[in-house]
């Protein structure tokens, strides 16, 4: 028996939903709508913490994502590194993901530290992939030189000028982690924040925000989701891929809201029809 129009709308084939979503995402990416970019308080707070770093402070930046989540997380990481390289701070970069070095290469190409006059080994360094998850965090915190004898390119840490006098977590002013993993985001709290009291800033996926909210602002001083990369780029005046996605977010979210309303109208209309028929 053929479906009535209401029944059809109520159980719309997924192919149609997918097609509408593709159009809603693609059109604003190809032809930006130029919607306003409001800056949320979470992004302002993140920027204020970076801005407040004293000269010469050491910051550990953990690129805690793999290539799968790179498109979602990289824009925020790029904006953060731009913000850090604007200042006179020392940036130690590492990753807990085996494909993290690929993400680092992509990241550093986009940020281009040379443009800020930053020199590898003096102003920033990449330690590479450190296996072990939470035990790696602990090992780095306790004794950096024992946990990671060389940097990613094989240079012994005691030959890298900026790392000669660094022994572990107590030498760092801040830790920044951008990750799609709850274990990683919370692991930093357990291994760095609780024992050493380091200022921790965490950027996660939007869907992970509820799981991280309990730690904000006591343990996680600045907490935001990576979808706000466009706002951050706008705030620091470094437009990148995040800002281009904002219009697509708006259109796709509005489409979803309208679709849910239509589905509910169809559901109640069907219900009323069935009641009337009975």
């Amino acid at each position, binding site marked *: 028996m053929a479906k009535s129009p209401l029944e059809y709308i109520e159980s719309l084939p997924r192919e149609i939903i997918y097609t509408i979503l593709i159009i809603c995402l693609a059109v604003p990416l190809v032809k930006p709508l130029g919607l306003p970019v*409001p800056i949320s308080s979470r992004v302002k707070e993140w920027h204020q913490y970076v801005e407040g770093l004293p000269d010469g402070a050491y910051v550990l930046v953990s690129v805690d994502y793999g290539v799968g*989540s790179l*498109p979602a997380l990289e824009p925020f990481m790029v904006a953060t590194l731009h913000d850090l390289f604007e200042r006179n701070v020392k940036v130690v970069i590492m990753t807990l993901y085996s494909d993290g070095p690929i993400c680092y290469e992509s990241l550093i190409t986009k940020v281009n530290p040379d443009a800020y006059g930053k020199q590898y080994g003096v102003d920033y360094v990449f330690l590479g992939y450190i296996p072990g998850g939470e035990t790696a965090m602990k090992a780095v915190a306790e004794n950096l030189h*024992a946990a990671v004898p060389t940097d990613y390119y094989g240079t012994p840490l005691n030959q890298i000028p900026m790392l000669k006098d660094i022994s572990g977590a107590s030498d760092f002013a801040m830790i920044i982690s951008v990750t799609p993993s709850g274990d990683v985001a919370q692991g930093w709290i357990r291994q760095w924040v609780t024992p050493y009291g380091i200022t921790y800033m965490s950027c996660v996926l939007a869907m992970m925000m509820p799981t991280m*909210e309990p730690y904000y602002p006591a343990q996680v001083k600045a907490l935001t989701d990576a979808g706000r990369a466009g706002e951050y780029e706008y705030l620091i005046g470094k437009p990148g891929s995040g800002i281009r996605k904002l219009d697509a*977010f*708006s259109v796709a979210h509005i489409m979803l809201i309208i679709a849910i309303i239509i589905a509910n109208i169809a559901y109640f209309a069907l219900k009323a029809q069935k009641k009337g028929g009975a």
Partner: protein
Amino acid sequence: MSLAYRRHLPIIITFIMGIIMILQYFIVPKQPVEPYQITMQKVGETLTNWANLLAAFTIGFGMVNIALIHSRHVSRKTPGQWYYSAWLLFVAVIMVIVGIGGEPALGINVSKYQYDWMTTYVFAALSGTMYSSLAFYITSACYRAFRARTIEATALLIVGFITLMSRTPAFQAYLPQVIEVADWINKYIVKSSFRGILIGGALGAILLGIRTLMGMETGYLGRRD
């Protein structure tokens, strides 16, 4: 294999290592002074580095495991699977050869450019595609699941709507009040609920840790023959 070797020895090792890690966390101060504190700190650091080495080893172990499982599928010609397994093994071998800089004995000389090209335009693109396909599944699931069927479902629908609107840049700009409502939900309802869940989970984890140390939890020993 004797019971002592198969069961008692791993439990004893787990107990000793667990107790050492707990003691060094609580006994060793940030700046150890006493000889026993320095010794405990060194032992703790060594054990942590061992754990990291084991984690690194599991990557190689995983590769061997994948090779064994998929070689079996290919040799047995498992219907609907063997050609995927063959393709996986072929691509894995290519990636390894390219990753280690080629194999001159086979006449394959690879530069960093070729490795970068494969990771950027093959691996990264495919991984990103897999991940972003979630957006389609979630949209379809929202369309089907968000129905005001009951009071609980209606509450979920309303909160879902507010959250979605608060995360939409257009609404943030033209209807900023929605952010305040979403913030209130996050600050009071979400945070308190998740804190309850977290505390419950933490208590469970402590209990599991104690049971593991006491040898009452033996799941990590693997299957009993």
